[in-house]
């Protein structure tokens, strides 16, 4: 994948862009209550790619949902770009999403009736804004979709669909991009390409990213890796190799 230095925007924000303070999340009540998160605090610095790892049931998905404002914590709070989101009413939260949050989903979540390009600019269309033509061209180029722009999702491969989803998440230059198991529904070769693309967007555009994954290989592209088990952060690594990640994982007993 070509790396284009020029035209790459500076990171949208400096310093800490996402902050969680002692976040807990309890599902259900009484006897059957489950504590998915039991007190998590973290900071995400601008321009970083943070991977959240952990076995299933560790609470990593719940953490991401809460960081992204999709779910509310039982206690604790979360700020995005300095704004406390846990108490935000729906309308304000929606506005915050438009400006600050991008999503990449495991199952792509593209709108089947729209073309690749229309899917990509959808967040801007929703906000009644227009895409900057140069930025859009660059995204299409970087994601290798320039000659696929008029295709519908059903005419694209899984990898291509996920690249459309990544471009869609990047188009509004969000403060923070959340990726939920972005390779979980792809074969390993395609998954590798998607990881390269995510890493590229962090390096080139300074796109702050939080990625939830259970794949060691995925975590290995991160600047920082948080290991979750039973609703707590049990270990943290700086940029490392897949082999090392695997070691840590097995030491955590997954």
């Amino acid at each position, binding site marked *: 994948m070509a790396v284009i230095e020029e035209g790459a925007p500076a990171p949208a924000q400096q310093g800490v862009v996402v902050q969680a303070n002692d976040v807990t999340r309890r599902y259900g009540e009484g006897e059957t209550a489950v504590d998915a998160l039991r007190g998590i605090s973290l900071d995400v610095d601008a321009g970083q790619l943070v991977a959240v790892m952990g076995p299933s049931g560790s609470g990593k*998905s719940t953490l991401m*949902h809460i960081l*992204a*404002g*999709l*779910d509310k914590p039982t206690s604790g709070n979360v700020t995005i770009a300095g704004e406390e989101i846990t108490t935000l009413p*729906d*309308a304000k939260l*929606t*506005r915050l*999403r*438009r400006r600050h*949050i991008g*999503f990449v*989903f*495991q*199952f792509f*979540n593209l*709108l*089947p*009736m*729209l073309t690749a390009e*229309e899917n990509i600019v*959808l*967040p801007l*269309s*929703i*906000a*009644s804004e227009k895409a900057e033509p140069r930025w859009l061209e660059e995204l299409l180029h970087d994601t290798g979709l320039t000659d696929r722009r008029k295709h519908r999702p059903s005419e694209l491969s899984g990898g291509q669909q996920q690249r459309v989803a990544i471009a*869609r998440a990047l188009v*509004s230059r969000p403060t923070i991009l959340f990726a*939920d198991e972005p390779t979980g529904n792809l074969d390993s070769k395609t998954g590798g390409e998607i990881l390269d693309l995510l890493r590229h967007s962090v390096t080139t555009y300074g796109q702050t990213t939080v990625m939830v994954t259970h794949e060691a290989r995925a975590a290995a592209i991160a600047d920082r890796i948080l290991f979750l088990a039973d609703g707590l952060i049990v270990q943290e690594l700086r940029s490392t190799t897949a082999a090392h990640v695997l070691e840590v994982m097995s030491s955590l007993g997954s």
Partner: protein
Amino acid sequence: MIGVALRGLAGRKLRALLTAVSIVLGVAMISGTYVLTDTIKAAFGTVFNEVYKNTDAVITGKSAIGGRANNGITPPSLPESLLGRVRGLPGVAVAEGGVADEAKLVDRNNKVISSGGAPNLAFSVDPKGDQRFNPLVKTSGRWPSGSSEIAIDTKTASEKHFAIGDTIGVLTRGPLKEFRIVGLVKFGGRVSSLGGATLAIFDLPTAQRIFHKQGKLDSIGIAARSGVSPAELVSQVRPLLPATAQVRTGAAEAKQAAKDTNGFLNILEYFLLAFGFVALFVGAFVIANTLGITIAQRMRELATLRTLGATRRQVYWSVVLEAFVIGVIASVIGLFLGLALAKLLNALFVAFGIDLPQVGTVFATRTVIVALVVGVFVTLIAAIRPAIRATRVEPIAAVREGALLPPSRFARFGPYIAVVVIGAALGLMLIGLFVSGLSTKLRLLSLGVGALAVFIGVAMLAPTLVPPVARVLGWPATRLGGAAGMLARGNSIRNPSRTASTASALMIGLTLVTLVSVLAAGIKTTFADSVNKLFSADYALTSQNGFTPTSIASESALRGLPGVEVVSGVRAGEGEAFGHRIGVTAVEPDVTTVVDVKWLAGSVQTPAQLGQNGAFVAKAYAKSHNLEAGSPIYLKTPTGTTLELKLLGIFDPPKGGSPFGEVTISAKRFDREYANPQNLFAFVKTSSGVTDATTAQLKRALARFPDAKIQTRSQFINTQERGINLLLKLLYVLLSLSIVISLFGIVNTLVLTVFERTREIGMLRAVGMTRRQVRNMIRHEAIITALLGAALGIPVGIVLALMVGKAINYPAFTIPWTTLIVFVVAAIIAGLVAAIFPARRAGRLNVLQALQYE
């Protein structure tokens, strides 16, 4: 976002189509009604304009009762001497008098030519006179002249194979008379068809003779001298007129005539529109349900939009916009489908005996506006709830597998709210039915709103009722369908609100047909009951259709036949008493030997003692006007004479109806006061009772009266019931539209459910379910839904019938079990039909693809 909504719609064409169908049909009914009635109105307008084209002023008779428009009462004739005096006026250039009446033409099989209850018109012409007032044009031959000649309309001639020179039988006041056809005529101008009407044209003296109008005229057409305006002419004529005549300008007369017919057509219009609105109401249910299911299936898509920054408001409007587009497209299609439906409705009416004239189709701007506005409005209303539900989709549903739409905030109060709504609805209906002193408008409004609210309330309650009821109704499916039936029953219960609203749409139609059938059954049984009580004769003599009056001459044809002991006719006419228009009947002295009623005042002798001034009334009439034996009654006849009558008897009619009108007088007096006395029916008693020989003898004696029909008691009951049955069938046909729409609702739900359960069906196929079993599963589900509709609709219909029956003092409440069982069977068949398409789709699912489906 607008683009997303529209593209989404384009991407779900099948669903959009399924949603639209219900609106298309409802709108088509409304537009079709307008097109039909506008077309008929225009036809009448054209006819009347043609009739009075060259007439500056016209003098006609004026009935002393029924107001200015005569209101369907045949006005009295004018004295012929008036014509001479009119001709003497300074402003009059030409004045011609004519007679108009009814004459039945008889075909070569001795049958009266009549179609669709249309009039059998008769006019006079002056063959040597000025034809400027004559609205008819000759197509061949010449105008009739002399006592044996007739001209008839071209259509009848060609349909019944009559040509110039042939003789044709004509029925007027007395027995059949034969005339020689010398000309064929038609209406001039743009009038293309008179519907089923026939024309018989005679010269004036012949017309006067056969209609017993010697020395009389029915109208005088006047052309003004140049320089005299029609209004001036009218004011010149007015002082000459007796109280029973009126003069109008030609234009005003045409307008008045059109207004008279429009009164009837407006009733027809409202009647048909009501069915259109019922259809749209059902359509609204179907749309709301279809959109609701679509929303549930698009949860991930909607949630994704929310994560991308779409506000609740945007989601709401995207659903409303989608509905708006569907509404507009469906309404436009419905509007034009209405043109075709108008033809179909006309054919339906002809089939049911209402044949109306036509000119070119009228497609008014009002039709376009009303159809579009109503269609779009109903769609939008139906979309509100699904749109609100769509806003409830949380963004997190974008990442959760199998997320469920959160229930409405009020969901848990649903059954309670439903009960309150039903209670309020019934209350409203009770007010409409029983509170006295309400205006008709208010009464109809509270009934209409109440009925709608009943349906909405029951539909709200339905989700609570579905699981237990479906368990019972689905029992046969589990026995007959094995695993497929068991799964079908489970499926119908697993989303009760969906099943409930699908069934509710069907419920509405079934409620209405049940209501109609229960009321009709009540009429029929009590009617038969009354006739059995009243009818002590052997035969009844009526017209062929049983309700139009017949010439009293047919009655005399039977008198004096060997073995005929009594022939007693019952005359019918209109009058005014105590300030109200009433039905007047008249009887012959021996009526009590053929009609057996109970006397509360007076006795069986009373009819024989009526003489010139006696009268008798029914119990209810006596009560409401505080009458007792000896009370005076002032009866005004159409000619303006007031009869001073004395009440001699009060009878108690059986519940099923009285054989007599409000006030009954002696036939002797009636024949003197009413210009053209006719029998509603006559009763015959013979020495040998009903035998084949007697029947044959009576029929032979009536050979010269092709319009008369001799019937035994049970035949008489059947003939009278035929009218009710015909009306019943017409109502069923019109209500079937809303049932068809609700069937589309079942199709929609099943198609969408199959789509939703693709993976599940794939799994079932993978573990060994055959295509056939899959199809059966869908079929059973459809039948269970249809049965739920019947289980809701039939009881609601019975309750409504009870209420309506109580309100209008209905004589009896009979539940027509056979008919109701037929409805249930029909519902099952309907369910099977609705399942055809969805079952095929489910059966065709590719197992592998179904399992991979994401």
